[in-house]
């Protein structure tokens, strides 16, 4: 995945982005499910950060909707089992279960949006380097990059096999069930063979088992400022009841 086009937060160190995202997730997910009002305030982060990364928030929101079925599957039982009355609205009693259900949906979408934002802004190679510099074992950092690169090799081989099969199948598009095992096994063997050749070529060019990604990664003042701006905001949203504060202010006015 390509990093976001040059944007206001496009130059931020991926470690800073990762740190801010983790703190955001911890702060938001630690809010009790019954405090939907507190969870909603956390939407400020993706809403503000998305335009700064040159991404329309609507697009980010749409992209995050893929997680909705899982959230609904887990959360839908809460209104059934938790029937403690929370409040009445136009004469209809709203149960605590519905409140927690809505909370699960909102925090699930916000968590996905934060992750999508992180991926879009930092890019995969930079994120692997960030993970390595944050103490992730070299074996797994190299493995991440290897899987990512060999995916295209696998897809190429699959397409070649598919074309070859189409060329000799006289218009038949479907596979017999018994052919799937040999097809997939053959695909695996072909890809393994090709990966061995690639590995030998890499070794001949000095590959020693470690892939370098982005050696010019430096922590700058901008990264510190980025963390110092967002992290206190997340802590404030977690520990200060902003809704109650605003209601009190309105009452005074």
């Amino acid at each position: 995945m390509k990093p976001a086009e040059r944007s206001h937060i496009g130059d931020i160190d991926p470690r800073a982005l990762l740190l801010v995202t983790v703190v955001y997730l911890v702060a938001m997910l630690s809010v009790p499910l019954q405090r939907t009002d507190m969870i909603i305030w956390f939407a400020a982060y993706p809403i503000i950060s998305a335009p700064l990364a040159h991404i329309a928030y609507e697009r980010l929101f749409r992209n995050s909707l893929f997680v909705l079925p899982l959230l609904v599957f887990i959360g839908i039982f809460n209104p059934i089992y938790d029937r403690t009355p929370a409040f009445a609205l136009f004469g209809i009693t709203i149960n605590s279960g519905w409140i927690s259900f809505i909370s699960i949906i909102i925090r699930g979408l916000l968590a996905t949006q934060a992750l999508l934002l992180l991926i879009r802004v930092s890019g995969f190679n930079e994120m692997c380097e960030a993970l390595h510099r944050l103490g992730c074992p070299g074996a797994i950092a190299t493995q991440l990059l290897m899987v990512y690169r060999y995916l295209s090799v696998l897809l190429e081989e699959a397409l070649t096999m598919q074309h070859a099969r189409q060329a000799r199948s006289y218009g038949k598009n479907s596979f017999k069930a018994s052919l799937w095992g040999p097809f997939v096994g053959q695909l695996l063997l072909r890809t393994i063979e090709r990966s061995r050749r690639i590995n030998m070529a890499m070794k001949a060019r000095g590959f020693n088992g470690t892939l370098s990604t982005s050696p010019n990664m430096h922590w700058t003042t901008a990264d510190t400022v980025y963390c110092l701006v967002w992290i206190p905001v997340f802590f404030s949203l977690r520990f200060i009841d902003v809704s109650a504060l605003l209601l009190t202010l309105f009452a005074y006015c």
Partner: protein
Amino acid sequence: MADALVSPAIAAGTGAIAATLIAVAASKVKQIRRDDIIPLMGVMGAFVFAAQMINFSIPGTGSSGHIIGGVLLSAVLGPWAAFITLCSVLIIQCLVFADGGLLALGCNILNMAATSCLIAYPLIYRPISGTSLKPWRITAASIAASIIALEIGAAGVTLETELSGITALPTSTFLAFMLPIHLAIGAIEGVATAAVLCFLAKYRPETLYSDYTADESSCTGRFASGSGRLRPVLIGFAIATLIFAGAFTWLASANPDGLEWSIEKVSGISDMPSATPATAFMPDYDSRFAGIVGAIIVMVMLWAITTIIFHRVRNAHQNSSTKGKE
């Protein structure tokens, strides 16, 4: 597992265990004496990653699932290298497709990678298949190991969600939902794994993992040397676990005292809460509702403002680039 389904405490706990296992696995992988282990891990990871993208429907349930691939990876790479590979697949799914969640990564690694590579493979697959390349042994081992891995993983998801306090669903009912679905997914994964492994065993048996390719001092080497006496016990354990899993699933499905009972209860008028007068408008909890409404209004305003600014900046950028071209 998604981020929304775990509490920070559970995420931290499972994350710490997963990180420890990754550190151990990384040191074990260094001991493997196999020249082509790096490209093989890369290719197998890419293969499983692609396979996980394919969702198949489960007849009669209305749901779908995808394979995990841990048993297949372990049978080719060995348990520790397979664990690292599967972890990398899960991390890529998280960091490329935002699938799974960052905080839930520890849970996902334990539920999928640890159960299939470090539990099901050494305790179920190896004792059943042994060093034999007979198709029926590979098939039986693949199906048994895949089912056990999926069932333990499903139980893990249930436990983690319950401990996080996310769902109000009772544990037994939640298990009654999760186990039958994952039994079906496990059986399908087992058949798919067996098909690939039987092909490899027939045409390229040297591709399959052998304990002797690892360092003799590693735990896999010791496991192989002691497997003679241990094997009947482990086979017995595997069969007992399968029977238990099947029986538990059947019992869970046959006694729907959870959901159906609850739905019946929900539809009953007598059980409706009567604590709040029907005519009252937010008598005790109006401030909470007002807080929700207020937060939504502010967020909508924030979104509107940032969208307007975003479009203006983009238009200005486009205008300037057009002028530059002219």
